[in-house]
Structure formats: C-alpha cells, structure tokens
C-alpha cells in the first residue's frame, strides 16, 4: 500500500469528528480540524512528491503549523491557559527556532531535524503533564476519556518523532545506521496508522456539549 493511502487513515477520525462536530466542545472541534490539517498535508505531500519529486517545503511549513496548533490546544485544555507566559514563550520560541533554521539558514528545502526535535520534545513534556493531571484527577474510566486517549496517541507519536529525527540525523554514518534509520523512517508510516486509529477512538468518546433542558426568562 502506498504511503499516501496509509496516510489517508486520518479520514477515520476526521469523518467521525465532522459528524459529531456541532455537538462537541470548541477545544475538541479544533482537534478535529487538526485531523483536517493532517489530511490536507498528506494530500499536498503526495501532489508535491509527484510534481517536484520532493515535499520538503510543505513538510517544514506544516511542522511549524502543527507545533503552534498543538500548543494552542493546550492553551484551550487549561494547562497553558494558567501559564500564559509559558504559552507565549513556547509559541514565540518555536516560531523563532523555525525561522532561524528554515529561513536564516535556508534549510526549508531540506529535512533538517533541529526544529522538529525541539518542538517534539516540548510537546511530549506537555502531554506527559496533561496525562498525569488526568490520571490523578479523573474519577471516571480513563480508557473512555477522549483527552486521555489523545494524550497517549500524541505521546507515542512525538516520542517516536524524536527517535525518527535522531535516526535521520545519523542515517549516513555507517551502513548499519543507514539500515537502522531506514527501518525507523518506514515504520513511522505504519505507526501513523495506529495513531490515527487511536484518534478515531478518541473522537468517538469526545463528550457532547451540555444542553440546557430549559432557559430562564430575563427578569425586568
């Protein structure tokens, strides 16, 4: 199966999410839109690969959008809302790092690992923190908690991304590292299928917005 078709598994959480879109809270709606962004990125990657033989530019631009988007999700989920300075620092910090790496050093046409390594690391830390918050505070079944499943999925994804970037960094050193890196890189595509399936389960468990059974008339 081509990598593009494997990438289209993101349609599963996206379709479920779009069906339930109006009934769910805004922070989760943004998560569904992130699935849409992933689909758009997959399509552009596929087209760009066919037309130009490479997808480095859209890949690097998407990495920036993904990083900023996920930090914003944390802002909506509460942790970064309470830590406003940290939120601004993270957004500005990774944007600056991206600008320096891709525009100043003009690595936008290459697969350079530094920005992705850094933002993956910080995203993992944020998800670890959120996961621990849920473990301690949630009194209901965690396995049916959408945020918990999303955290687990992103944790796996971005921890693997750290490994991916390190593997890519050392890929040309020896024949062994080349073989190792190739395995890590190809496995990433298969891992994405599993992650998208987890996203699908998470979207299924997203709670609906509370509907008020009645409204009160305004007092004069």
């Amino acid at each position, binding site marked *: 199966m081509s990598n593009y078709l494997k990438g289209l598994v993101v349609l599963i959480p996206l379709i479920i999410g779009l069906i339930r879109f109006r009934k769910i809270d805004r922070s989760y709606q943004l998560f569904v839109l992130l699935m849409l962004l992933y689909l758009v990125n997959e399509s552009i990657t596929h087209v760009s690969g066919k037309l130009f033989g490479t997808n480095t530019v859209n890949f690097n631009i998407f990495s920036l959008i993904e990083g900023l988007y996920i930090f914003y999700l944390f802002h909506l989920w509460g942790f970064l809302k309470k830590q406003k300075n940290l939120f601004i620092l993270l957004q500005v910090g990774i944007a600056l790092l991206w600008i320096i790496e891709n525009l100043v050093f003009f690595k936008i046409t290459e697969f350079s690992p530094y920005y992705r390594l850094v933002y993956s690391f910080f995203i993992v830390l944020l998800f670890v923190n959120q996961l621990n918050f849920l*473990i301690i505070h949630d009194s209901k079944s965690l396995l049916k908690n959408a945020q918990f499943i999303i955290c687990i999925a992103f944790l796996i994804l971005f921890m693997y991304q750290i490994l991916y970037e*390190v593997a890519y960094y*050392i890929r040309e*050193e*020896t024949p062994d590292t080349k073989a190792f890196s190739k395995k890590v890189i190809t496995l990433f595509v298969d891992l994405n299928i599993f992650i998208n399936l987890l996203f699908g389960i998470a979207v299924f468990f997203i709670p609906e917005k509370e509907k008020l059974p009645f409204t009160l008339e305004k007092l004069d």
Partner: protein
Amino acid sequence: MVDKILYGTIVFAVLIAIIILVFIISILRYHRRYVRLQKERIFAEITMQENERRRIANDLHDSIGPMLSSVKLNINSIEVKDSVDEEIVQKAGRHLDDIIKNMRQISHNLLPNTLERKGLIEALKEFTDSINDSKHIKIHLQLVHELSIGKEKEIHLFRIIQEIVQNTLKHAKAKNLQIGIGQENEHVLILTMDDGVGFDTETAKDKSTGLGMKSLETRTEILNGKLVLESKPGKGTNYFIKIPI
C-alpha cells in the same frame, strides 16, 4: 562519523531521561495537590456537620427547652377540681419532664455544652463520668492540666475520644478503659488501653462495614495526625494518636 552517532545517542538518551523525570515530578505534584484538596474537602464537610450539630443543639437547648418548661409551668398552674383531670395534668407534667430530659440529652449528645463553655478537659471529664455512672465500663481518665489547643481542634479531639469509647462499649466487652492525654513538643498525644477481648486488626480492616474506625482515621488525617491501633485477640485494644497543634 562515530561522533555523530555518539552525539545522536547522547541527545536521545538525555531527552528520554528528562521526559521520565518530568513524568515523575509532575505525577508527584498532582498527587500531592489532589491529596491536599481531598483533605480540605473532608475537613469542610466535617466542619459543616459540626456547625449543624451546634446549631441544632443550641436551638434545642435555647428555644425549645425553655418553651417546654414554660408549657409545664402553665399546665401546673391550671386549677383542676376533678381528680381524673388532676391525674391527667400530672401525667402531662411527667411526660413533659421526660421530653425535656430527653431533649437535653439529645442536645448534649449533639454537642456538649461544657465543651463550648469550659473546654475539652472538662467536657471529657463530664463525658467519662456519665459513662462511669451507667456502670457498663470503668473509664480512668488521666489528663494534663492544660492543653493549649485551638477551639476548632477541641471538637475533633473530643469526637475521637468519644468514638474510641463507643467502639470499646460496642465491641470490646471490656471492664476497664484507660485514657491518657498529654502534650509534648507541639503535639497532643492520646493513648487508650482496654482490657477487652481484642481483635485481629488485619481481618477487621478487610471485613469492617462500620463507620467508627473510618471516622477515627478520617478525623486524625484531617488534623494531619497519626493513628496507631494495636490489638490481638484476648489482649485488649490500644489506640495511640498523635496530633500536631
């Protein structure tokens, strides 16, 4: 060539180590916050409960009590010529006496007046005297002359000792119960010993459905205290409680 592999491995290992460290630190922080919130919640609930008891006890003692006494006075002041009517009035008077007595007892059980007016030590003396009068058990109370505890903690200490005495009366089949209260280095110490039947503490923990022991543990915990229970079948039961002031 080897440098790149080495740097790559080191960077990866360091990042994973930091992630694990952050995981441990954040889970500890959240757990500590959660435990503190739980304690505050329980403390608030118990305080509300005690305030409610105080209110009801005061209402019974200060408003219903005098009203009933006034009703009794009015009834006794009725002039009756008929012996049957006189019998009825006297019976009503006796019923009112019983009601007033029971009501005072209920009010006292809810919150002993002595605790409010004279403090913990006097309240404990009064409580143990009333148990000794009933002759179910002999309680030997050893108190230091002054305990410097805040008023808000006195009620909890009183309830703890009350609970221990209730447990002893209900389960221990003891003839004697010794209660010692002291103060040492910013801690109140309570030690109780009975000569009752004792029990297997491990089995009791698993099978217990009563609230007494849980209530003891909860009150000790919200006061940031320590509770140690020692008991063996045939060897009586000892409680040791240490509560910071």
